């Protein structure tokens, strides 16, 4: 086989090629067809939309909590309802919004940025989405049948054990973890394979866009972190359903074992959420200042270091359990190290903004908002790394303020920027800039009004997760302020939604590259065709679209009459061979249904593990039924 061959960019568009590509990559029709989609844009968009719905759900839960806490001795919510709502809020935001949203963007953007046509395992991709959706619906089935989890999103044992949380509340929570983590593992596997093997020719490792690096690191972190939480939730589940004794102290189990395993996942989880967001920031900064992000190598190395260090500091969530002195010093030091790697990135972005030619778009507004909020959250993070300070403010509203500063500031603000930045790519229309800036300011003010007072509340002794407080505690006025802020935040969210709906219909037509950005996704049409590119682009520089058009090169030689992609080598991305992706299939959906029957049923009856496994086996046979080569051609 002859590898790809470079041609000039103004190669005449061949009508026949496009017709073939359109036919081969067309989505199947009908409801059965809709359940069979395997293109990365469709799956990525499904993730993004679903995760956004759960962001709204989590936001409504937050408003209910803030309403309850607005006044001392408020009776808007009782303790039981409040505990359900704060647990569901945390669970939703972590497992059903933040991680899937970042994965959705990754699935959508990574193949475009790499200049390929789909992810490496399209059917696994579809399966992962259905598992996520099933897990989310499973949890909310519990929420609406009075079985919402009520033991906090990290479900410490023995509180979450059979003795103290009877009923099915903790089981719904624990099994939802299994669903969403299966989904996350699928995404991680396919993104790693795609990034390693399907890059545009000549996109050597040192030319990968920073956002793609972020997704690569995040995917590796998912591979190592998610098994830990599945083990932790399985401890709870099997202690509850088949009376094992892993973490139930009444039976000789160890509650601290659970905490170690959970936080071995739980801390990397935070970086799994915000490392992709740092990738957004890099992409937005370089596009909107029109210069490459300063210090590419330093950025990549600090992100990799971040990924490693993330696994070495879980114990700082457990300082109050009592540790030997040497352990305390070790985990303080490792926690402080995160400030170095994050600091390097902040410095590099500021240096980029400083020497670039900025265009103060809404997306860049969100970057500035991110820097302000995230750096403040980083400062409180440094405080929390110190054992004596942590012992004072751990499990108080100070910590609530801290992690909302790093998660909303560090992940949601870049995410909003990402929406404004890539909306034209996804829909073909620009979002309105005036509404966008209004949106930014409302969110920024609302956010700080909500969460800044919580620092002071924590220092004044207000523990987190209390459903009410007496007036004499003196926490009333600041809580009231925070509640007002929360409603302003909600207005910001509504403005964003309005902008999305308005711009989708009436926004300015974007064209392929409205921002003059540098990475390959902007070479595709807006919105991209199912096959992304008629001719796969090659990456002749780190900023392939800032190379003069006559120097850009493209790949030809792929067959257009089947779903073919180009596989390149790991280090230098030299063209290696062509690879045929499978056609759309209903089997990933059916397999997800079978696995769901097994997972969901096993909460009620252990035999469902068996029935689910049998059904899954049958579906996998269908999924992997050998095809004659001819059948690959539709």
């Amino acid at each position, binding site marked *: 086989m002859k590898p790809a061959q470079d041609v000039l960019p103004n190669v005449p568009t061949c009508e026949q090629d496009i017709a073939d590509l359109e036919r081969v990559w067309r989505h199947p029709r009908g409801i059965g067809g809709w359940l069979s989609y395997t293109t990365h844009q469709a799956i990525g968009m499904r993730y993004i939309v679903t995760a956004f719905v759960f962001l709204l759900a989590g936001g409504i839960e937050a408003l209910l909590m803030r309403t309850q806490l607005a006044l001392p001795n408020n009776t808007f919510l009782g303790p039981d309802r409040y505990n359900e709502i704060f647990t569901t809020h945390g669970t939703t935001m972590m497992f059903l919004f933040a991680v899937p949203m970042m994965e959705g963007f990754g699935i959508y953007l990574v193949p475009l940025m790499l200049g390929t046509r789909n992810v490496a395992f399209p059917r696994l991709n579809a399966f992962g989405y259905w598992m996520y959706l099933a897990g989310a619906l499973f949890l909310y089935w519990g929420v609406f049948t009075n079985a919402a989890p009520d033991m906090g999103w990290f479900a410490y044992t023995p509180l979450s054990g059979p003795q*103290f949380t009877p009923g099915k509340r903790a089981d719904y929570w624990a099994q939802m973890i299994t669903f969403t983590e299966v989904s996350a593992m699928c995404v991680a596997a396919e993104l790693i394979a795609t990034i390693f093997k399907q890059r545009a020719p000549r996109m050597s490792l040192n030319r990968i866009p920073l956002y793609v690096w972020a997704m690569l690191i995040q995917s590796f972190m998912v591979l190592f972190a998610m098994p830990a939480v599945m083990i932790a939730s399985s401890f709870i589940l099997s202690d509850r359903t088949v009376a094992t004794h892993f973490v139930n102290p009444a039976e000789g189990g160890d509650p601290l074992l659970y905490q170690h395993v959970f936080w071995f996942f739980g801390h990397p989880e935070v970086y799994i959420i915000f490392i992709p967001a740092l990738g957004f920031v890099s992409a937005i900064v370089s596009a909107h200042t029109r210069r490459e992000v300063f210090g590419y190598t330093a950025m990549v190395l600090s992100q990799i270091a971040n990924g490693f260090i993330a696994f070495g500091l879980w114990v700082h969530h457990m300082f109050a359990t009592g540790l030997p002195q040497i352990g305390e010093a070790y985990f303080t*030091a490792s926690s402080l190290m995160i*400030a170095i790697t994050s600091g390097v990135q902040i410095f590099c972005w*500021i240096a980029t903004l400083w020497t670039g030619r900025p265009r103060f778009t809404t997306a860049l507004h969100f970057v500035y908002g991110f820097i302000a909020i995230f750096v403040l959250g980083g400062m409180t993070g440094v*405080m929390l790394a110190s054992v004596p300070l942590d*012992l004072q*403010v751990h499990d108080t509203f100070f910590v609530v303020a801290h992690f909302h500063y790093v998660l909303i500031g560090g992940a949601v603000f870049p995410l909003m920027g990402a929406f404004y930045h890539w909306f034209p790519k996804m829909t073909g229309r620009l979002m309105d800039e005036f509404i966008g800036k209004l949106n930014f300011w409302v969110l920024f003010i609302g956010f700080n009004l909500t969460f800044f007072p919580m620092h002071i509340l924590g*220092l004044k*002794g207000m523990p987190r997760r209390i459903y009410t407080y007496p007036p004499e505690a003196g926490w009333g006025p600041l809580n009231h302020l925070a509640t007002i802020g929360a409603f302003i935040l909600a207005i910001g969210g509504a403005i964003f939604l309005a902008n999305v709906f308005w711009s989708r219909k009436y926004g300015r037509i974007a064209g392929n590259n409205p921002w003059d950005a540098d990475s390959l996704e902007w070479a595709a049409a807006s919105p991209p065709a199912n096959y992304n590119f008629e001719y796969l682009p090659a990456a002749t520089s780190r900023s392939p679209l800032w190379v003069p*058009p006559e120097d850009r090169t493209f790949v030809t030689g792929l067959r257009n009459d089947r779903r073919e992609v180009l596989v390149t080598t790991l280090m230098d991305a030299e063209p290696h061979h062509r690879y045929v992706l499978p056609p759309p299939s209903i089997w990933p959906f059916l397999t997800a249904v079978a696995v769901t029957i097994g997972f969901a049923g096993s909460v009620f009856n252990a035999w469902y593990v068996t029935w689910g496994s049998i059904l899954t086996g049958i579906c996998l046979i269908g999924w992997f039924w050998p095809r004659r080569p001819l059948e690959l051609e539709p």
Partner: protein
Amino acid sequence: MQKRSLALAALLILSSCAGHQQSVVDPAGPQADRIAALWWFFFWLLVAIFIIVMAFAVWTLTRPNRGLEQEPLEARHRPSEQKETQLRRIVTGATVLTIIILFVLLVFSVGTGKAVSELGNKNNGLAIEVTGNQWWWQVQYLNSDPSQVLVDANEIHIPVGRPVLIRLRSNDVIHSFWVPNLHGKRDLIPSRVTTEWIEADKPGVYRGQCAEFCGLQHAHMILYVIAEPEAKFKAWFQHALQPAAAPSTPITQRGQQVFLNNACVYCHQIQGTTASGQNGPNLTHFGSRRGIAANTLPNTPGNLGGWILDPQTVKPGNHMATIAVNSQDLQPLIDYLESLK
């Protein structure tokens, strides 16, 4: 941003003047004092760094805005090699500075941690065992002489100027012991014993509250540490060791009969009577306590009546049984319990 930091400082100072409320920055003992000193060191240093970083970030806003129009490709911005080298130096310098500052913070933090943990090592210490229950605190003053062991609930009396070893255990789920004016948190973990030394410099009443989510009534698991001068503490202790005084008036005598003839005795102990239940708080000197239901309500006769008649409304989900006390019996019962000084 800067304004907000100053506002924080102002608010913190205000809150530290507010007196008896629980607060991290209003230390009343050597442990909390050391931690508060570390806090202010971290606070001012990090505020300064925050302001500097923000100043650099805001400075970039002064760059000319190139607007939304598309530009020719040649307009791609590439600063001169000299400028890049200069930037590299600045970023490297900032990173090195970050590392140095973090190292200083690490040294101070570990030093404070070590100093705080050594504060309790004195000979005249007092040992108190605190046991967490959903949702109240059992307090037991330990002594090698069994006649000097005292069981109390939801209040800890300590002598000023003497270190106190708090031994922490839990009967059910994980709780966390936290009296911010005296020291940081320590978890109460079932199947384990954890410890913490506290000490009060000045007399006062310090509020604390369970800090690890422990179920329905996590919000209402409050305790007070009452620090008194040594003599006053000794007097209190000797009084508290005494069994409950026999009721002296007809109405309190009747109240005692109501207590002893109802299910109260299955859970509560009143020394000097036949009531010897161990599931709930010891009520021997109930009348002298500041609050009821783990300090959910102030200890007044009216609150007590409401609590006895309908505990599930006051503190939904708590484990106190609702006992049908008829209206003639209620007032004597309240009077009797309040007489247990």
